[in-house]
């Protein structure tokens, strides 16, 4: 084993210096963080003085766990192997020594390890400073703030009918967006969700004039920043260009520039003119020079100028990077105040502060905030640079060392937070000389993939280059890869070194590639395989290929883990379908939306019917759903019932006897059961909790029986939990609320221990698998949609951060405008992030990496088309094209005849309900209290049942009741309202009866034994009797005796013979009165299995077993 970066790794543990560590995939970053954390622990007075900030809760938990593990192992002196482990051990021992010396008791007090996510750290800060953070009191953060954003926007819209100045601005914006309130609403909601991006510039604290001046300044700066390098690049061609420019102007009859255009906004118009000389409309180098652009053909001078321009273009083409500079400049916008898009921006800058203020009011009225607000408040709590708050000063004393993980995915707020926490550290270090404070940030620019969540890799580069508040960070680059085999590492090095930009660029958020060195030598044959599919059934063939690859990987190595990593969820369904068909068990983390689960769709039908009993669609869907499954013929009779069928409630049709009689026999019997269940639901309306109500209705309808996939039951459980939540927050049965919640949830992932994992590339960050499959690389991310608003935060070359915002001005794609400039900029960032995303995916692989794609194919030219530039494939296309294995899949005959038409899925046979039973629904459904004959008897009976139930779970069975049973009996009796002497008497009766049962060696103990198969206590069942009436029954005890193979159904009784009654007479009497009931139980249990069924009564009080 060779570790190339050994020196960097040991340097990183120096507790007196601050570092920025670049840690590529598989470089053992977490281990390094832990080692440094341990090293720092050994230098501080209190463990809390070392603060580590992670990206996710999971990462925080893992880090805390591993630190504890290292300390515990050191404590117990567990054997450790390997160089790494020895380093960790030594550091842990030092930390332990410090622990012992200062009596920290870390091992029993894990919370003293200050490892937090940024969110929890911020929440902690705001709790310490409720007033400064402007929460006033305790507001809790919610994960689901969208509804509050909507409320804030609705508030804003209500301004329209007022005379407030913002009304005019809002009206102008609405009119610009075609008076489409929904669109603007959605847009503003999105703006609120990301207000941490703009509030600093257009926030509440700014007047519209300030905002306008700010934006003006930034745009001017931008123009200068972009034109200057271009101007410098062209300087030697200036005279020639100037001459050609003047020639063109004269021919076109437009004003010629007096001098070569300056690199600032004043020269912009001429620069644009200059661009038309060199580039075509679509942005390519100009190859034809003609009259329309001011260069007519003609002998002499005309031709001479045409040739001069052509020659110049040929020369300029050779200059590297010039084309890009020219293209960038073509979008540069004017800051002309009369310009329409500029006006829009001004309107927006007047509306946004009001919107943000509305949101604060909403937060206040609900006592809830979103995570951004917590972060913003945390910043407020620390105060700005001129006025650090007391909290800031106190914290300054609290933290001596800060470690931050995953810094490449930092957003501006987090960056700012770190900056404020480390104010004055440089000065402190310069003055004190000992007890130096250090900052340690770890990240990998190549793995920055959260741009869509405003993570900004520039911040990482900037921190690396400039440090914080003058506190410089030493740069360390890790290069070893402990994860992947040499074959994989080499391939990744070769492929991605050409896919990444050549140089880092802070302003652009551009990261270059650095090669890794594999620690694990060797690797399997053909470790990396690229496959291209084409032809009519390419999609199907690709999915099947992936299933084969999964199976191969599993058989090749029985321990192997396999992952299918897709860019988006929507790419996965065809693959999952094949995996299911081939019975390859997988776990799909957050892939399948809960709302799309068939079980949920069916449950929603129930909810809709219950919410609105006149909803024809819901009712007919109910009758078509699997539990009922009416044929279309029958459905038609019901749907077209009445004179104006569209206005008839379905329930009225169902109540019409002749109509019912006209249905098919099958339809009649199916409908009968569903109808009875719905009547039950109607009777129980508002009498049960939502969950009980709907879950029981679903069970009655045989809902669980028609769930196609096992995991469907787990999905249903999630749904019922939502109903509980609906009850607890008091929204009741609200479809929109439910749909909203469902949209944010995912179907049950399935077996978490499955060896095949299916997830998105983003989700896979930080994980590793033996075999990684990345499918469907040629798919474009999403159509290049036109967002209504764009913004961008970037750093200038001097490291100054700037913010830009533009509203869609409806301009053509290629025309110069701020919107188009930002659009272009965003596209560039997306392209670079695509490369990084694919890099993240490829580096998850330990030994095998498979990538597949369906690239476009030009039949006429017989070659593959260049993949769409927004596809992942585009990032590595040259390599892919060269190495790919082609699969041509035109053979349609191989396609199974998958008639995609949904057939009728339904339950085999619903329980039979006769019409008579329907007509005479059980009277007295209400919960009328009945007269209790003998309260003590009844209460004691209940308690005995509970105790016997509890005892049947205990193995081995006690010989007598102990304290535990006594207290349970006491609890049951008290909760039934008994007290005083009555309680004592009932209690002793219960004990007597239970003790008698436990003493009954032959039967009592046999009944309660844990050795039986399929045993159950107090089993609740619903059953229909011969007349078709539904009954709810509870079977006290049932089991299959393993010796005889007989299923026993036993009913407990606590009655006892009267003093002078012979036992036989008593038993006969009791048997007669319970025979029918127990026959019903027997009937109910026939469907449980093939075993012969025996029924019996057990008289607990006298320990007597009586078989019927």
């Amino acid at each position, binding site marked *: 084993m060779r570790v190339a970066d050994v020196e960097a790794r040991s340097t990183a543990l120096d507790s007196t210096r601050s570092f920025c560590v670049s840690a590529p995939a598989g470089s053992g970053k977490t281990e390094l963080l832990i080692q440094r954390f341990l090293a720092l622990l050994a230098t501080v007075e209190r463990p809390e003085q070392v603060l580590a900030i992670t990206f996710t809760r999971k990462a925080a938990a893992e880090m805390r766990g591993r630190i504890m593990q290292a300390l515990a192992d050191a404590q117990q002196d567990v054997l450790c192997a390997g160089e790494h482990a020895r380093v960790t051990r030594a550091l842990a021992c030092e930390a332990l020594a410090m622990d012992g010396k200062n009596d920290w008791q870390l091992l029993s007090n894990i919370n003293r390890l200050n490892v937090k996510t940024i969110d929890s750290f911020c929440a902690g800060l705001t709790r310490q400073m409720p007033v400064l953070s402007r929460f006033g009191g305790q507001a809790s953060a919610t994960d689901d703030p969208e509804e509050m954003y909507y409320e804030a926007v*609705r508030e804003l*819209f209500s301004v*329209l*009918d007022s005379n407030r100045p913002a*009304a005019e601005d809002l*009206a102008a914006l*609405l*009119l610009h967006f*075609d*008076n489409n*309130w*929904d669109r603007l*609403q959605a847009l503003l909601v999105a703006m609120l969700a990301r207000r941490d991006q703009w509030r600093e510039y257009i926030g509440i604290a700014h007047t519209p004039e300030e905002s306008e001046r700010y934006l003006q300044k930034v745009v001017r700066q931008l123009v200068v920043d972009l034109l200057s390098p271009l101007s410098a690049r062209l300087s030697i061609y200036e005279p020639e260009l100037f001459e050609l420019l003047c020639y063109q102007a004269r021919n076109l009859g437009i004003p010629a520039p007096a001098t070569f255009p300056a690199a600032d906004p004043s020269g912009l118009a001429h620069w644009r003119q200059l661009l038309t000389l060199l580039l075509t409309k679509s942005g390519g180098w100009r190859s034809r020079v003609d009259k329309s652009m001011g260069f007519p053909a003609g002998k002499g001078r005309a031709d001479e100028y045409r040739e001069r321009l052509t020659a110049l273009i040929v020369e300029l083409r050779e200059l590297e990077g010039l084309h890009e500079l020219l293209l960038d400049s073509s979008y540069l916008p004017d800051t002309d105040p009369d310009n329409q898009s500029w006006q829009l921006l001004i309107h927006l800058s007047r509306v946004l502060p009001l919107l943000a203020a509305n949101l604060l009011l909403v937060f206040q009225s609900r006592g809830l905030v979103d995570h951004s607000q917590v972060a913003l408040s945390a910043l407020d709590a620390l105060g700005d640079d001129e006025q650090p708050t007391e909290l800031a000063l106190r914290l300054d004393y609290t933290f001596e060392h800060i470690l931050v993980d995953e810094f490449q995915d930092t957003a501006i707020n987090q960056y700012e937070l770190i900056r404020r926490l480390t104010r004055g550290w440089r000065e402190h270090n310069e003055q004190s000389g000992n007890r130096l404070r250090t900052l340690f940030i770890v990240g990998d620019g190549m793995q920055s993939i959260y741009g869509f969540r405003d993570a900004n890799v520039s911040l990482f580069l900037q921190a690396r280059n400039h440090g914080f508040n003058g506190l410089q960070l030493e740069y360390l680059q890790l290069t070893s890869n402990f994860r992947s085999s040499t074959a994989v590492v080499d391939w990744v090095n070769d492929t991605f070194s050409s896919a990444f930009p050549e140089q880092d660029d802070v302003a652009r958020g551009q990261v270059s590639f650095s090669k890794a060195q594999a620690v694990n030598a060797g690797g399997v044959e053909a470790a990396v395989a690229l496959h291209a599919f084409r032809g009519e059934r390419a999609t199907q063939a690709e999915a099947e290929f992936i299933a084969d690859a999964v199976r191969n990987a599993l058989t090749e190595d029985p321990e192997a883990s396999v992952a299918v990593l897709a860019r988006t969820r929507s790419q996965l369904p065809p693959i999952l379908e094949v995996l*299911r*068909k081939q*019975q390859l068990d997988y776990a799909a983390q957050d892939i399948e939306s809960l709302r*799309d689960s*068939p079980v949920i*769709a069916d449950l*929603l*039908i129930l909810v*809709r019917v219950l919410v609105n009993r006149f*909803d*024809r*669609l*819901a009712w*007919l*869907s109910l009758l*078509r*759903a699997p539990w009922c499954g009416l044929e*279309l013929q029958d*459905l*038609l009779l019901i*749907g*077209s019932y009445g004179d*104006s*069928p*569209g206005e008839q409630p379905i329930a009225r049709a169902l109540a019409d006897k002749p109509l019912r009689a006209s249905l098919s026999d099958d339809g009649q019997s199916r409908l009968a059961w569903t109808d009875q269940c719905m009547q039950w639901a109607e009777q129980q309306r508002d009498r049960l909790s939502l969950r009980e109500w709907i879950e029981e209705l679903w069970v009655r309808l045989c809902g669980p029986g028609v769930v*196609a*996939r096992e995991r469907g039951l787990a999905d249903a459980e999630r749904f019922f939990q939502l109903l509980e939540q609906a009850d607890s927050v008091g929204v009741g049965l609200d479809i*929109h609320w439910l749909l909203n919640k469902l949209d944010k949830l995912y179907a049950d992932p399935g077996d978490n221990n499955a060896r095949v994992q299916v997830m998105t590339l983003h989700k896979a960050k930080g994980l590793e698998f033996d075999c990684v499959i990345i499918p469907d690389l040629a798919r474009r991310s999403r159509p290049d949609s036109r967002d209504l608003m764009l913004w961008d935060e970037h750093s200038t070359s001097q490291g100054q951060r700037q913010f830009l915002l533009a509203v869609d001005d*409806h301009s053509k794609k290629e025309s110069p405008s701020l919107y188009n400039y930002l659009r272009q900029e965003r596209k560039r960032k997306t392209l670079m992030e695509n490369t990084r995303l694919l890099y993240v995916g490829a580096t998850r692989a330990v030994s095998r990496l498979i990538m597949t794609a369906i690239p476009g194919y030009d039949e006429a030219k017989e070659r593959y088309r260049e993949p769409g530039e927004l596809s992942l494939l585009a990032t590595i296309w040259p390599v892919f094209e060269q190495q790919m294995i082609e699969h041509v899949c035109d053979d349609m005959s191989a396609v199974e005849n998958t008639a*995609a*038409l*949904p*057939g009728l*899925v339904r339950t085999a046979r619903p329980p039979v309900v006769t019409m008579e039973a329907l007509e005479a629904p059980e009277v007295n459904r209400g919960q009328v209290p009945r007269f209790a004959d003998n309260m003590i008897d009844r209460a004691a009976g209940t308690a005995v049942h509970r105790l016997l139930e509890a005892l049947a779970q205990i193995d081995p069975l006690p010989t007598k009741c102990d304290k535990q049973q006594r207290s349970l009996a006491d609890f049951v009796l008290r909760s039934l309202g008994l007290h005083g002497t009555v309680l004592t008497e009932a209690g002793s009766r219960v004990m007597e009866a239970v003790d008698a049962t436990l003493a009954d060696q032959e039967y009592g103990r046999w009944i309660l034994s844990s050795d039986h198969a399929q045993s159950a206590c107090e089993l609740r069942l619903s059953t229909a009797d011969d007349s078709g009436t539904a009954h709810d029954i509870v079977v006290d005890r049932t089991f299959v005796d393993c010796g005889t193979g007989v299923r026993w159904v036993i009913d407990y009784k606590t009655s006892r013979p009267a003093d002078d009654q012979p036992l036989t007479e008593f038993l006969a009497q009791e048997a007669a009165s319970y025979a029918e009931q127990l026959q019903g139980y027997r009937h109910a249990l026939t469907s449980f299995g093939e075993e012969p069924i025996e029924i019996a009564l057990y008289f607990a009080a006298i320990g007597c077993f009586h078989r019927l």
Partner: protein
Amino acid sequence: MSADELPVIRGGSSLIENQSQCPFRAFARHRLHVSAPGELTAALSPAERGSLLHEALYLLWGQLEDSEGLHKLTVEEEQQLCSAVSAEALTTLDSDRRRAVGAACVALETQRLTSLLGEWLAVERSREAEFRVTQREHSQQVTLGPLTVKLQVDRIDTLADERQVIIDYKSSLSKVTDWLGERPRRPQLLLYGLAAESHPSALAFAQVRTRDCQFVGLGETEFATGVASDIPKATRGRAEAADWEQLNTLWGEHLQRLADEFLAGQADVDPLGPDTCTWCGLQSLCRVNHPVEVDA
């Protein structure tokens, strides 16, 4: 279908359109009489805004009558007219709805309509051939075997040679490929053509959309830009028609077949394309998203 059921069937041209897009949808809507639940919108719904636009255009051509009426307007007069008909169109909005959406929304919608009409009139002004608007919101019916379909034609223009062109206002993106194939996506105009007393010389969508106003159509006369008369070229690969006459015959057959299928009870869940289900709303009934699972 029984004779009793036939008179109850409602739905005009949407019946044929639904049958074409997905037979089950036609079955559900027109025979089971179900409709999808409406969506909640922040202010005026797209449907409301569509009918406001129709109303305004109806009023507008009531005033202008013909191309001459349009061309003699000055810029100011046109502006005033657009503004007046827009305001009048808004008065057709139910008073409850007016209150619900608020005065500001109504005012903005009037403004938007005014400028949209202005944009649209620029397209009408660019038509070279003279025309008279001879029918507006014209009620008609067409018989397809036992089935009678009631229609409301947005507008019929009569050209100088007395030939007629049928126009349908649309605020969504429209294309003539929606008329082609055995199952045309939007057969509405084809039905109008079938119902017309004399054979129309062109069918066209008037796509009235902000920043994207244009005619889109087919016919034997190119009465406006965007109306194509090269039938073989326009239908290539999607229909076998050498000229306008043949195309119309073909359409007649397609429409009759769709009507027959509807009457015969053809109710397969068979959506025309991947987007067909997006705005349907009946998925809970047709269960298209939940086909039979293999490992049941």
